[in-house]
């Protein structure tokens, strides 16, 4: 139901978030950009230095947006007469950045229950959190909100844009990934963590076997026959009879994780659901092997994204062999202290991962440092420590889009993609550059000149009482 459109009666889908922001103008005035009353169907950003991420940069060009999608990019683009034109001469335009792994926007990062594959962040996602406003300010236009790492199996994540009154309006894509943690949750050790995972998957097998058996018994009952075979045979005969509605909430997503196809008594049954992937958290190097084995054993290896802790760079050989996409730790430098000498050894993790040829994404830093929460700053650090510029830029745009299976819509400035655009005052990897404007699905979602909260923060010597309200 979260995907259900609202306002559909009188507003086209791509304008919905825009309209609700406008309706709510009474409350949000001054928060971020106050959009105009009539949203433009066509938007053109002209004179821009375009970083398309895919393809060569354009020194001066135009991005044309039609109904929320990028219609044309290039040095010479004809601008329709009715387009709303934003002259961004001399400024940089890059695709919206993607935060590929965060639990922010939820009421709590993790449920206290250890195994919750049946839950969905959509039930806890709060569109009113200031986090989303900050995303706009920092040029992040897509956020993969997913339960945090303090779990065994967490619920479904969801990719949202940081605008909209309801979860439905925010949603870019419904959940395609569960969270699994190999590193023990609080109060667990690895034995208990792994035992819980093992039991969960065994219980799924047992559950499906029981469902198959019951389906066979029901069939006999309908045909007015007595049970004629033992349970093992009944399960085999019943496995093709299992329907989607026979699988309850608690097992549906687990079954989807395992590919969506019923397997009972060693044999295949019907494929009932679309498969799910997993973001698998590995806080330590030793967890990589466990994660790979778990994913292969339960047939979700091809849909696995590994979420790494700093120490995981030590398992680079295994990571290279696995060749799965990885989400890097927010703290890009790993520091190991020699317990005897106290000597500190530093490793810049992204360089090592890049050298291994892995697809990787950067996430904001672990604390609320104003610098490290900027994905472009994280990318700039990578360049400083030897990662090529293009690769660093991909790590905050196209790579996370690929991991999420959304590279057909997000992650670069190419015709046909969703118009998620960020206008920087200068080179995004220059720390003195700031986000000036953000467009999401063509909607002018942020304008630094109208960011009253930022102005309050930055204006010297102005106390709250004297600051002029919007």
């Amino acid at each position, binding site marked *: 139901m979260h995907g259900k459109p609202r306002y559909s009666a009188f507003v086209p889908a791509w304008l919905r978030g825009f309209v609700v922001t406008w309706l709510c103008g009474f*409350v949000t005035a001054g928060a971020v950009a106050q959009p105009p009353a009539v949203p433009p169907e066509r938007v053109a950003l002209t004179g821009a230095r375009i970083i398309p991420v895919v393809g060569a940069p354009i020194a001066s060009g135009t991005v044309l947006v039609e109904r929320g999608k990028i219609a044309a990019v290039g040095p010479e683009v004809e601008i329709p007469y009715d387009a709303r034109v934003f002259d961004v001469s001399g400024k940089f335009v890059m695709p919206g950045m993607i935060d590929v792994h965060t639990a922010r926007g939820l009421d*709590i990062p993790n449920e206290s229950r250890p195994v919750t594959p*049946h839950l969905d962040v959509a039930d806890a996602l709060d569109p009113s959190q200031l986090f989303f406003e900050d995303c706009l300010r920092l040029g992040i236009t897509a956020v993969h909100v997913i339960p945090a790492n303090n779990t065994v199996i967490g619920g479904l994540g969801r990719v949202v844009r940081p605008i909209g009154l309801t979860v439905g309006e925010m949603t870019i894509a419904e959940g395609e990934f569960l969270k699994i943690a190999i590193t023990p949750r609080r109060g667990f050790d690895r034995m208990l963590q792994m035992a819980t995972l093992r039991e969960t998957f065994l219980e799924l097998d047992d559950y499906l076997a029981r469902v198959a058996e019951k389906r066979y018994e029901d069939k006999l009952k309908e045909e007015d026959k007595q049970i004629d075979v033992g349970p093992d045979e009944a399960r085999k005969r019943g496995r093709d009879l299992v329907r989607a509605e026979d699988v309850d909430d608690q097992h549906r997503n687990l079954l989807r994780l395992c590919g969506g196809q019923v397997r009972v008594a060693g044999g295949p049954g019907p494929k009932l659901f679309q498969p799910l992937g997993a973001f698998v958290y590995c806080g330590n190097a030793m967890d990589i092997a466990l994660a790979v084995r778990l994913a292969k054993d339960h047939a979700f290896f091809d849909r696995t994204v590994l979420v790494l802790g700093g120490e995981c760079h030590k398992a680079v050989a295994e990571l290279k062999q696995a060749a799965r996409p990885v989400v890097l730790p927010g703290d890009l430098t790993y520091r190991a202290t020699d317990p005897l000498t106290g000597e500190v050894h530093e490793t810049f993790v992204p360089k090592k991962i890049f050298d291994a040829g892995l697809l990787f994404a950067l996430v904001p830093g672990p604390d609320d440092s104003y610098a490290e929460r900027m994905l472009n700053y994280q990318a700039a650090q990578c360049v400083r420590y030897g990662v090529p510029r293009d690769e660093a830029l991909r790590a905050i745009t196209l790579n996370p889009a690929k991991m999420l299976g959304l590279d057909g819509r997000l992650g670069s400035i190419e015709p046909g993609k969703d118009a998620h655009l960020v206008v920087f005052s200068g080179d995004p990897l220059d720390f003195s550059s700031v986000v000036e404007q953000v467009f999401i699905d063509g909607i002018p979602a942020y304008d630094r000149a109208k960011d009253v909260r930022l102005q309050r923060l930055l204006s010297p010597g102005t106390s709250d009482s004297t600051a002029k309200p919007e």
Partner: protein
Amino acid sequence: MRNRPRGHKATEPRGDVYYAGFCALVFAGGLFAHAADITDQSSSPPGLAFRAAKLVAMDDANTVINDAVVLVKGNRIEAVGRAGDVVIPDGYRVLHFAEHWLLPGIVEAHNHSAAGGWGDLNDMVYQTNPGLDIRPVPRPDNPWVKRARTGGVTTVLLLPGSGTNLAGFGTIVSTGGKTPDEITMRTPGSLKIAQAGNPEWYFGGNGRSFMNWNLRQTIEKARAYCQRWEEYDQATKRQSGGATENVAAGHQAGRESEPPPAQPEFDPIWDGFRGVFTGAVPATVHTQVYQVLLMTVEMIADQFGLWTVTEHSSFDAWKVGPVVREFQQRGAPHAPLWIIQGPRQYHFDRTSRRMIGNANGWWKNGIHELAINTDAPVVPQEELTYQSAMACWYGWLPYPALRAITNITAKSIGLYDRVGSVEVGKQADLSVWTGDPIDPRSACLMTVVNGEIVYDGTQGTRRF
């Protein structure tokens, strides 16, 4: 206006004491009135006649009558009109309030104090507790209820607490009456749901993703049960309704009639929900803050199509106003969605960095049918009018704030045909005030429940 030939005009002086607004006069006169009352009561007057400086009827015509007379016979309102137009029948006990306001009894849709205190409200058995009902809990005439009367409150919806996501059914009771049967107005009064903001503490801490999933599961089970019975009832009705024709036709055609439908299993856990799914009983939902209220609208009102009353609706919940308005306008007559705000009428909005009046926030976002509640005894029941006053202090409007504790509240819980306004034929629940009830300087002078004076502060006996 009945019995005109036998009566006399209200403008004619009578032996009763005329209450002046000045304290001294009120007090001095009261001594005599008291003596007169006793003799009146011994002869048991056939009715009561209220004459007030101003009647604010709180009806849908927004009737206000200066120098009004309201006649009460038995437990009903017999007549309402201007003093010159309504004839007071002989023998009626006339109560003069020459400088005072007369209103309907105040209605509260979120009360716990009719239980007599904090006990008997939360069974922390499971995260959701279908099958529980607060019906046996109300304590007539308990000290909290007596206090409620001193604030003009005549009807309250007694609710289980918000310790779990679904705490059971509430009951609507009046604040007058001596026995549980006397005070019960409707049971079940509502289904109590707590969307979030308290049930978290069950099982050492839950998040909203679990609580909302779990609540949805519970309501789905209830719905499945009710659907089975609904289908059975309809099949039974079909068969019995056309029985004679079918038999005749069956005989003629030589066919056997349809076999009787199998009766579903009765389950006391779920049976109380049947009224909820037929639209006879509302779901009153403890809900607050933006995301939680959003879930209430999406899950309870939209997905399940229940008659939904959001209680509290506080903090920044009013920002959901456009979504609520859109839902209301979409037109789901089976699922009316009512917003009740309170207690606490303000919220510091981090976005605009200023204090916002919650009721005013709802109002400006298009919610003009808004009620107010106290969650008594979180805020004492007699201070419901103060909640409205506070809403006005933070920017709201006085008349809507009065409707919010009478007319709208009664409508939200489906009781407007009985209470919530002063209209002929309605239950005689009245309150008399020294002035506008929304003015914090005003006090309640008298409260009438079911035609009976349950609080009388006119004799120098005002409690507050």
